């Protein structure tokens, strides 16, 4: 029935023949070229979530503190003092693979727009980055460009970049992950939504002119191999323009004339207008000739699908257009009246007298095909998971002290200072615990003195080998990190980075990770309020490790109570745990020293985790816990070293008899923390841990110049610091621009 459309035309918009046939059937006719482009964008994985939406329904998204759940530009949870925290994470993986500087910069730009679109003042940025091995030139070039792009854009906007993570693994070769998270604060009753309101309301397009950049970005984000697909579609960022847009939009917050706001991201004007109309149930009519262009000769197709950055769509009441435009004029921004809201449920685009596109909104939002696929692990993967790692462990003959120093100097564990010093993390004068200081970043809510704790986490090796345990692990680790600064989780956002979901093994990873995350969220009572899905992360047929990055926001009533990881001189140091015994299977130690990702990672004990987190939150708020650090990659030995490095204080530690093994020193298990306690309150801590049914062991007293673990090693803190600080080396030379 679709004889007229060529395979080439379908490939260009990344639709299958079946999908095209479905669209024709629903529409009752063949779409024209502009309509086909619009359809391809809206039915892409990136906009339409056709592979992931059935799975995303597993996430619990409700809670007493949720002000906005999934489906808007960002999620929102309630803070004290009539305020809301608004947050979301988004990927910019494929653009960053091609042009790391601009790809990362525009990734930051996009997520920041999502936040101020909601009427929130952005107060913090975080990022989660993954690259191929650091000793490869391409990885270093990508790292250098991405870090610089993130820094230049965020720094320019005056939003502190306070935390995040950087990891390296061969699976990210050619397809790095660049996930950016932004957090904003808004009046709880003043959130702005992406709605159109009544028919007759006016559409205002504001900000940068529209150019040919980024056409098909959304569709190309939904196919494999960035090197091949993304050439020529990279957007270029202009943070100064974004700063003007941000200030102008925030000045308009609370204006009675503004009905809705929506930023232009993937699929540009097409998705932003369709999403607003879809949420409201209205129609929209636009006149493309009214849109200011950066280039001459642009077709309606190009205008509708351009992904030029730093643009916003506002829906304004007819009597308020002049007042709203005056605010943009103050900020030297021009605004175009480009259309109106209608009640016919259609997206109608005119180019002068000619109607170039007329499609039902419903077709673009609700009729997107949904695929529930069959997932199954490969035999090879199961064999890797079930492999006995004992012979591998026995093959590592390096002295224990050298093992520790090697891990500390390894790119995944070592200091990321080189990167985070390029990010302005002190602007807005509210960063209480910035990068490197604590398990989560802590910022002060200026209006109330409340502390906001923020973290991003994912162990993709665990997700690869056991996606259900890995998915749970990402959530519990994030919650544990918040608890380690004294905060209670309020909500979660995520970025699901996976390969091609049409492959059964990838689909299995995706669905199992989501199931694990959902179960952990339910057990810990943490709602998922926003998120992003990035599939088709593959390069030369090789998928990235499954990487469901969790971004979590928590709070504590009094920011001054927050604690960092560093040992304080004289504190009593304890190991407190609520989970399984540590294992070297699927550990960072095994990867770094034996060169292999294999074995079955330990699964968290969700009930135990909840008790552990409560214990930490109470102890920190009440002031008897002076420092806390979660044991993760590198195990107990690395965690102790990190506490020493950060606090500039040593420790002579005595291990429990059953813990005197390499497995205990470097093995990983969820649910273990190292705390430093007021020395005169040790009895309190011990009885509190026992009451909470947590296992505890007193390691020793912090202080001195050496970190010593009896029978295993004695190393000067200075030597630990020196190993840790050289992990990234100087990865870059010169990068553009």
């Amino acid at each position, binding site marked *: 029935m679709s004889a007229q459309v060529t395979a080439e035309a379908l490939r260009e918009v990344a639709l299958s023949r079946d999908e095209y046939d479905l669209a024709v059937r629903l529409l009752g006719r063949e779409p024209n070229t502009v309509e086909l482009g619009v359809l391809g964008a809206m039915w892409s994985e990136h906009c339409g979530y056709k592979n992931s939406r059935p799975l995303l329904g597993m996430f619990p998204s409700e809670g007493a503190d949720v002000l906005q759940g999934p489906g808007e530009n960002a999620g929102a949870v309630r803070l004290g003092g009539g305020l809301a925290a608004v947050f979301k994470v988004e990927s910019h993986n494929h653009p960053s693979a091609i042009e790391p500087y601009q790809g990362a910069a525009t990734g930051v730009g996009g997520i920041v727009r999502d936040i101020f679109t909601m009427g929130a003042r952005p107060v913090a940025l975080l990022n989660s980055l993954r690259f191929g091995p650091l000793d490869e030139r391409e990885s270093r070039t990508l790292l250098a460009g991405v870090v610089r792009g993130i820094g*230049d854009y965020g720094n*320019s906007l005056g939003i502190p970049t306070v935390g995040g993570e950087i990891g390296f693994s061969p699976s990210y070769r050619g397809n790095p992950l660049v996930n950016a998270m932004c957090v904003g604060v808004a009046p709880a009753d003043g959130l702005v939504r992406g709605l159109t309101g009544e028919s007759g309301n006016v559409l205002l397009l504001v900000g940068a002119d529209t150019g040919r950049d980024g056409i098909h970005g959304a569709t190309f984000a939904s196919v494999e191999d960035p090197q091949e697909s993304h050439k020529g579609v990279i957007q270029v960022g202009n943070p100064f323009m974004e700063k003007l847009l941000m200030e102008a939009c925030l000045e308009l917050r609370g204006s009675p004339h503004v009905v809705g706001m929506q930023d232009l991201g993937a699929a540009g004007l097409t998705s932003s207008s369709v999403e607003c109309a879809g949420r409201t149930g209205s129609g929209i009519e636009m006149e493309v000739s009214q849109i200011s262009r950066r280039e001459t000769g642009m077709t309606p197709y190009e205008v509708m699908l351009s992904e030029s950055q730093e643009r916003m769509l506002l829906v304004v009441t007819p009597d308020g257009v002049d007042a709203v435009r005056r605010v943009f004029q103050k900020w030297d921004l021009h605004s175009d009246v480009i259309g109106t809201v209608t009640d016919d449920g259609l997206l109608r685009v005119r180019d002068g007298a000619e109607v170039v596109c007329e499609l039902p909104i419903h077709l673009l939002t609700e009729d997107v095909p949904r695929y529930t696929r069959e997932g199954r692990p490969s035999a090879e993967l199961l064999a890797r998971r079930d492999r006995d790692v004992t012979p591998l462990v026995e093959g590592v003959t390096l002295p224990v002290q050298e093992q520790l120093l090697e891990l500390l100097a390894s790119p995944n564990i070592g200091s990321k200072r080189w990167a985070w010093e*390029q990010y*302005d993390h002190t*602007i807005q*004068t509210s960063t*209480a615990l910035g990068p490197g200081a604590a398990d989560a970043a802590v910022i002060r809510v200026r209006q109330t003195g409340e502390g906001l704790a923020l973290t991003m986490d994912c162990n993709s090796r665990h997700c690869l080998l056991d996606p259900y345990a890995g998915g749970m692990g990402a959530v519990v680790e994030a919650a544990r990190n918040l608890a380690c600064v004294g905060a209670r989780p309020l909500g979660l956002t995520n970025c699901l980075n996976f390969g091609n979901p049409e492959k059964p093994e990838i689909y299995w990873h995706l669905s199992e990770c989501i199931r694990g995350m959902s179960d952990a969220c339910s057990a810990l009572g943490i709602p998922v309020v926003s998120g992003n899905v990035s599939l088709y992360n593959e390069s030369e047929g090789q998928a990235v490790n499954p990487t469901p990055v969790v971004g979590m926001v928590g709070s504590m009533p009094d920011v001054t109570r927050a604690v960092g990881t560093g040992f304080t001189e004289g504190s009593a140091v304890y190991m407190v745990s609520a989970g399984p015994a540590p294992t070297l299977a699927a550990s960072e130690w095994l990867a770094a020293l034996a060169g292999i990702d294999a074995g079955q990672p330990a699964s968290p004990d969700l009930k135990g985790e909840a008790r552990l987190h409560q214990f930490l939150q109470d102890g920190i708020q009440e002031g008897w816990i002076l420092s806390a650090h979660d044991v993760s990659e590198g195990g107990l030995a690395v965690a102790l070293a990190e506490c020493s490095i950060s606090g500039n204080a040593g420790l002579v530690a005595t291990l429990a008899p059953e813990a005197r093994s390499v497995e205990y020193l470097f093995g990983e298990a969820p649910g273990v923390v190292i705390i430093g306690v007021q020395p005169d309150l040790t009895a309190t801590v011990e009885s509190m841990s026992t009451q909470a049914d947590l296992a505890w062991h007193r390691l020793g007293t912090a202080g001195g110049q050496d970190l010593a673990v009896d029978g295993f090693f004695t190393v000067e803190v200075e030597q630990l610091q020196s190993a840790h600080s050289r992990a990234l080396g100087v990865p870059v030379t010169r990068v553009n621009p």
Partner: protein
Amino acid sequence: MKVGVVTFPGSNGDMDCIHVLEQIPGCEPELIWHKSTDLLSADALVLPGGFAHGDYLRGGAIARFSPVMREVARFAGAGRPVLGICNGFQVLTEAGLLPGALHRNQHILFRCAWVHVRVESNASPWLAGAQSGQVLKVAVAHGQGNYYADQDTLRGMHAREQVALRYSDTAGRISADSNHNGSVLSIAGVTNEAGNVLGMMPHPERSADPLLGSADGRVVFESLVHSLIGVAS
């Protein structure tokens, strides 16, 4: 006492300055938009950090053409206190109100960190409350803070005590190790000949609260209040 915070469209430290000034007894801060030529009868002016007009060309290169700058120059010329922080320092050098220039950091990269500076001269009203030789822990965050002036200019500046702040270690020793951006003579802050205009790359407003890591920067704002009220009474 009114302190005007001059805000360019790309300023991003303006609200931080307002916030800290609100905490200083005697200060009433107010924003002054860059298109304005009315200084709102301010007693002192602060040019905050940021990227005034995007600054893709060079920090502060376009800001000097903003309408407010003619008034800022007149105000400075009358001997009244003006402080430029980070981008504000860049703007003041571009506008010719302070000697020298700020190059890209020697190591090329933007750098946000805690550093120490030694007070070289407390002749400026902005540093009158500090002791000469005192070491302050302050935040820096810039990509273009590598101070440069030629030898003749530097000689004159030394003679007139215009070098106000130099990067040092915690004990006040000055060496290449503590010179974090490659500035000539480790210079972190300078004044004009009369001393009423101070430009500094570190951020005193971000270093004025123990929660954030240091309160040493408060001395800059407290000195101003002390100097002006002292002068007035």
